[in-house]
Each structure stands twice: as structure tokens, then as C-alpha cells.
């Protein structure tokens, strides 16, 4: 790693901030500090940070609120809770905010540094992603100066066809699906991704299409079968729900074990 990982220490006790901060700097990390929640969120907004060491008892905004806000705004941020008042409620909040560790005071500075080391080593992929994002941002800045239009293919004309399979009718352009004997007022609204998946299945009813092929159609990117399945799951869930409630076809989409999905013709 060319750049040192950056760590934000949030604690209202100046003594804790400086002692932990110095130890982390000696271990080669870049350290920032904040004395309360508001300052912590300001610092996170101002500069990328890899890991936040968070005391939960803070003046003003509560530590759990800081944790929930930060994890929502920065899903890649690693959070280690460091608290003198451990309790179940705050620990549950830590699980739900995706915190990676929960340390109880009193604890030696040594142990804190060790926990940080372990966490960062276990999440090197996240650090690499951050480095990549920075490289990308710089590239984008450089690219912004170029006339990009000539590199980009003109957008495909919108597909305004209507697909039919059994009793299902899919209006691709308007992203609506309904039962053939239902009026358009009862159609379910689909997202762009849901439309793409359903259109692929309806184009070849009964044929099994692998998750990878479906996901590539949606995202235009190559990925492993496992990744494709993870991406499709919430999407299939929503799609099945809509087919059940609006088109009367709860069982239209089927799974073929791990081979993929297909549309059952009624």
C-alpha cells in the first residue's frame, strides 16, 4: 500500500485521543481526531477515511447515532466501537451498523492498535477499492477535459415492443407487467432492472437462463455465477412479489436448482 490507511479517532477525552492517536501514528497510520459526533461526521465528509474508532458516550449527538449515520453514508468505512459503558443495546446497534469490532475500556493502547491492525489486514480489499476509486476519480477528471461524445455509441433507440408469454403481458418501454385479461390500470410498475430480467425470461418461455447471463443483461458486466446470484436475489424477490400481486402469477418465475431461472408458461 503506497498510502497509509487513514484512521479517525472519535472520543471526547483528549487524553484518549492523543495517546491512541500517537500510538497509531507510530504504527504508520494517518490519524485524524474528533471530539464529538458532529465533528466526526464533518471530518468523514471532508476526507476519505478507512477506519473510525468510535467512543459511544459523546457530548451532543450520541455515538450510536454517529455510527448509524456514518455506516449509511459510507458503507465502506470500517467501524470499531471503543466504549467505557458497554451495554447490550449499543452492541446490537453495532451489529446493525455493520461495525467490525466492539472493544471495552479499560483497554491498553497496545490492544487498540492490535485490533486496528487485525481489522485492516482482514479488509485489505476495501483499502484497495479505495485506492482504485481515487485513481478513477483522477482519471475522470482528466477525461472531463476531453470531448467524450465521439467515443460513446449513440444510445440505442428505446425498445417499445410488447412481450407476451402465456397470460403475462410486458410493456418494455413503459416497464409495466400485467395479466392479459387485466386492464392497464392494474399493471405493476417495474424497475429498469426488473424489466430487463423479465423480458429476457419472457422472450424464451420455459428455457432456463443462467443467473450469469441474466445479470450480464442487466448490468452489462461479466461476473461469476455466485456474484450474479447475489445480485439477482433481491431483484427476483421483488419481481415475484409484483407478479403475484398484480398479474396473478405467483409461480411464473421458477428456479432450476442452481442452473438458473425460467418462466413457466401457464
Amino acid at each position, binding site marked *: 500500500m503506497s498510502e497509509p490507511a487513514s484512521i479517525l479517532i472519535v472520543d471526547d477525552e483528549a487524553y484518549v485521543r492523543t495517546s491512541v492517536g500517537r500510538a497509531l501514528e507510530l504504527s504508520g497510520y494517518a490519524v485524524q481526531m474528533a471530539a464529538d459526533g458532529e465533528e466526526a461526521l464533518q471530518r468523514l465528509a471532508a476526507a476519505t477515511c478507512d477506519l473510525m474508532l468510535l467512543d459511544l458516550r459523546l457530548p451532543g449527538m450520541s455515538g450510536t447515532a454517529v455510527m448509524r449515520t456514518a455506516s449509511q453514508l459510507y458503507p465502506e468505512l470500517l467501524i470499531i466501537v471503543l466504549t467505557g459503558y458497554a451495554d447490550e443495546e449499543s452492541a446490537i446497534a453495532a451489529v446493525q451498523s455493520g461495525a467490525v469490532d466492539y472493544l471495552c475500556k479499560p483497554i491498553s493502547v497496545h490492544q487498540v492498535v492490535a485490533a486496528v491492525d487485525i481489522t485492516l489486514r482482514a479488509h485489505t480489499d476495501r483499502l484497495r477499492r479505495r485506492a*482504485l476509486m481515487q485513481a478513477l476519480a483522477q482519471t475522470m477528471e482528466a477525461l472531463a477535459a476531453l470531448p467524450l461524445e465521439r467515443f460513446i455509441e449513440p444510445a440505442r433507440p428505446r425498445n417499445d415492443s410488447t412481450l407476451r408469454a402465456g397470460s403475462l403481458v410486458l410493456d418494455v418501454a413503459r416497464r409495466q407487467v400485467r395479466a392479459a385479461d387485466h386492464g392497464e390500470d392494474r399493471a405493476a410498475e417495474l424497475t429498469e432492472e426488473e424489466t430487463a430480467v423479465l423480458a429476457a425470461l419472457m422472450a424464451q418461455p420455459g428455457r432456463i437462463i443462467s443467473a450469469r447471463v441474466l445479470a450480464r443483461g442487466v448490468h452489462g458486466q461479466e461476473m461469476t455465477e455466485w456474484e450474479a446470484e447475489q445480485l439477482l436475489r433481491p*431483484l427476483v424477490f421483488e419481481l415475484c412479489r409484483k407478479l403475484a400481486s398484480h398479474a396473478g402469477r405467483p409461480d411464473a*418465475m421458477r*428456479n432450476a436448482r442452481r442452473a438458473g431461472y425460467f418462466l413457466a408458461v401457464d
Partner: protein
Amino acid sequence: MQEFPSRRKAAWCARILVVDDEPRLASGLQRALTLAGHEADTAGYGRRALEALQTRVYDLMILDLALPDMSGIQVMERALQLQPDLLVIVLTGRSNLESVIAAVKLHAADYLLKPSGLAEIIEAVVAALQRRAAQVRERVALRTVSQALEILQQSDAGDAAE
């Protein structure tokens, strides 16, 4: 909660293992998950759960911490050794600080206290699947971008050599 009238035929969304020693609760949860479009198996004790994890790949496990034969945290540790990508939602009646901290360290997807409504549990499942999908999406996008950057750099190097 939306229900699927025909539950055996619909596409399952996620494969879920319910680990709870109360058979009523486990089968109720299994039924609710199936109605919500998932495929669910149940295990009444820890060793049974680990057997199931050795024979099938699951997306998510809903785990009671108070099991007759092993501690829930032990089950979670072994389960993650067997299937590192498994999402775990803890659902427990007898909770204590120590086990919640263990759940943080093992990166549980959620921690629910009994009694939790079925709708709340199903919602937690969907939320966990969505978070996982978002992570995978970001991973795939970044990989695509880094591959594209690499190709660009290689063609730059080729241009310079000419």
C-alpha cells in the same frame, strides 16, 4: 407482508437455514419464509445445523443462540468456516452483552430479539440480501473499471513504444 398463494412452485429467492430448538417457531418461520418466496430448511440443534451446512450451500442462516447441544456463537463460528459467505441473522430470546459482542466480531448481518414478528424477520432477511447485493454490485463494477483501466494503460504503453 405480501404472500405467495402457491408456495411450492414459485422461484425461491434465497436458500435459508432456520436454526431453533422450538419446533413451533422453526416451522412457523419456515412457512413464512417459503410464503415470502424463499426456500427454507430447519435444524433443531447445532450439530444438525452444521450437518446441513456441510451438504448444502445456503445464502442465509437465522440462528437462535440458545441451543441444546452447542452455544449459538460456536455454531456461527463453525458455520462461517464452512461457508464464509453465509449471512447470519441472530434471533434470540436470551441475549447477553457477551454474545452480542461476539456477533459484532463475527460480522452478523443482524441481531433480533425474541419475540420478533414474522414480518420483521422477513424484512431483516430482505435487508441483508439487499446489502449483500449492493456490496457485490460495487465489487463487480470496480473490477470492470479496473480491467478497463488496465487495458487503457497497456494500449498507452503500446502507443509509446511505436
